[in-house]
């Protein structure tokens, strides 16, 4: 034949797409069923991810079937799309990322990241702008039922620490040891997520330790019971949990608060 057949790699490239797309569908399902998805996104969006994963798998399956059928018919051979990447790169990038996603397990953020954003920011934080009025009602439940985030939100609305003195506290979080805090305190913190891990920001309250208390390493998850007091920390009056008991707990399935 005088005319050369169009490049042979075309035969394999469509399979790369099928592979890449299918891999993403499986990866999304794998994250969902291994509960790793809680580390990545707001739980609100998990159903959306599951549906997408199924749809993506369907696209991969249909595409595979199409290629198999076309090989017999071989009718639509030369389609030139506008490519952003050279042929094969897009598929390869998708596939590589999916494989990395299988190999490297996403980790919840640690105290180090929280410290990176500055302790002051954690105190002031749960930035006033981020507090939503609709959350106040939830925060107005009885003190010992408030979560750490509820406390921080309540504090944003009525910032006077003295108004909480003596109220019972029972909250969960992980430990952070900022240098500014001094020996007898640590910071009990959680990351708050509004959409996905990319916008996670730390919130926290200082916890005052009694002398005989065991010191836990950073990033230990604790259930802290005690009552509220006002302490002066780093020159500022600060609502502080005077701990009566510290209980080590395992990291919750969903490490973030919303």
């Amino acid at each position: 034949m005088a005319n050369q057949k169009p490049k042979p790699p075309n035969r394999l490239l469509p399979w790369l797409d099928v592979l890449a797309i299918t891999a993403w569908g499986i990866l999304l399902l794998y994250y969902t069923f291994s509960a790793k998805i809680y580390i990545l996104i707001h739980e609100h969006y998990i159903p959306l991810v599951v549906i997408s994963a199924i749809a993506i798998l369907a696209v991969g399956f249909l595409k595979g079937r199409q290629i198999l059928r076309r090989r017999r018919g071989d009718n639509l051979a030369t389609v030139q799309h506008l490519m952003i990447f050279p042929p094969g790169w897009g598929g390869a990038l998708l596939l590589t990322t999916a494989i990395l996603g299988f190999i490297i397990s996403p980790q919840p953020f640690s105290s180090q990241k929280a410290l990176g954003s500055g302790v002051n920011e954690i105190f002031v934080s749960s930035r006033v702008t981020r507090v939503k009025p609709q959350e106040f009602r939830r925060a107005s439940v009885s003190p010992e039922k408030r979560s750490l985030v509820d406390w921080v939100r309540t504090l944003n609305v009525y910032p006077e620490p003295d108004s909480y003195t003596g109220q019972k506290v029972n909250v969960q979080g992980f430990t952070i040891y900022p240098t500014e805090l001094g020996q007898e305190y640590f910071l009990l913190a959680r990351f708050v997520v509004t959409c996905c891990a990319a916008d996670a920001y730390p919130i926290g309250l200082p916890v005052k330790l009694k002398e005989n208390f065991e010191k836990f390493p950073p990033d230990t998850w604790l259930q802290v019971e005690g009552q509220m007091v006002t302490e002066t920390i780093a020159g500022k009056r600060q609502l502080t949990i005077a701990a009566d008991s510290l209980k080590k707990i395992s990291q919750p399935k969903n490490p973030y608060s919303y």
Partner: protein
Amino acid sequence: MNQLNNGFTIFLSLLVEAMPFLLLGVLFSSLLLFFVDERKLVKVMPRNPLLGALFGSMMGVFFPVCECGNVPVARRFLTQGVPTSVAVGFLLAAPTINPIVIWSTWAAFGRDQPEIVVLRVVFSLLIATIVGFVFSFQKDLTPIVQPAIARYLKFNPAKGEAKGRSFRAGNTLLKSGTYFLGGKAGSSQIIDANAMQETMTASVSNKPLADKLGLLLENIVYELRELGAVMILGSAIAAAVQVLAPRDWIISLGSGPVSSITVMLVLAAVVSICSTVDSFFALSFASTFTSGSLLAFLVFGPMIDIKGVGLMLSIFKPKAIFYLFALAGLITFLLTLFLNLHVI
């Protein structure tokens, strides 16, 4: 090691969160490509330049296309005799003013900063309408559009009758409904009129459904792959900036009312992440950058893209593209600066 882990987690979280929206955007734009006959819309388009520009800007509601889909559609509009104001308005606003993009923006910002969602829509409409209106003063399109389109318009006076059979039988140089441009990125002026593209013209309706579905699937896979790959690169950049860039540096850049907008406008041009998922990219800067600058990214990003330039060269001459971008960029800058300085 810890940094790397955090970076990877952010990277993955952006991807996992964005994937459903990307898929939805791709599905929708592909479906519309094959099952909506936009000629009916063309008929009702207003001829008044200002109204036309506004109409064009809002047409994205019916054509939920992202940056890659809007250029071919705008191009076809032009060749069908749609006024420039409508086509330009559509070109600039369609990637933003569409249900999926608004939803994904809501997913990212709706809880914390709902005003960003609203202002993104308002600013995009405003800018697209203004630029469309400005372009409507250019009555003779020859100096700004590519010769192929100019020639086509010359021989097919744009009076809206260029539709139906007469149109299809017309100039073979330019198939009005060509969605896929031939050649490689950047040299896309020449339309590759092959058999498949024929079927993708507005006359697609006379193809059997099975063939249509086959093409639909092809298009879905193609967009998913190309846009997905861009999304991966974009997420990698966002994650890397969050983890690697010195915090003080980012904070000082991000808190300045002017510097933050400038940085985000540059990012908008460089990171050609798809508009259905770009709000997640912006979200990773939400804690350090001013709202105005995030908005600048969200408004200007869908209008300008490195990859978009290659596509746009299939319609306009470089000079016109420069004016289009410069005008859109400047108005974005002004509006978002007003926002940062609390003027509005």
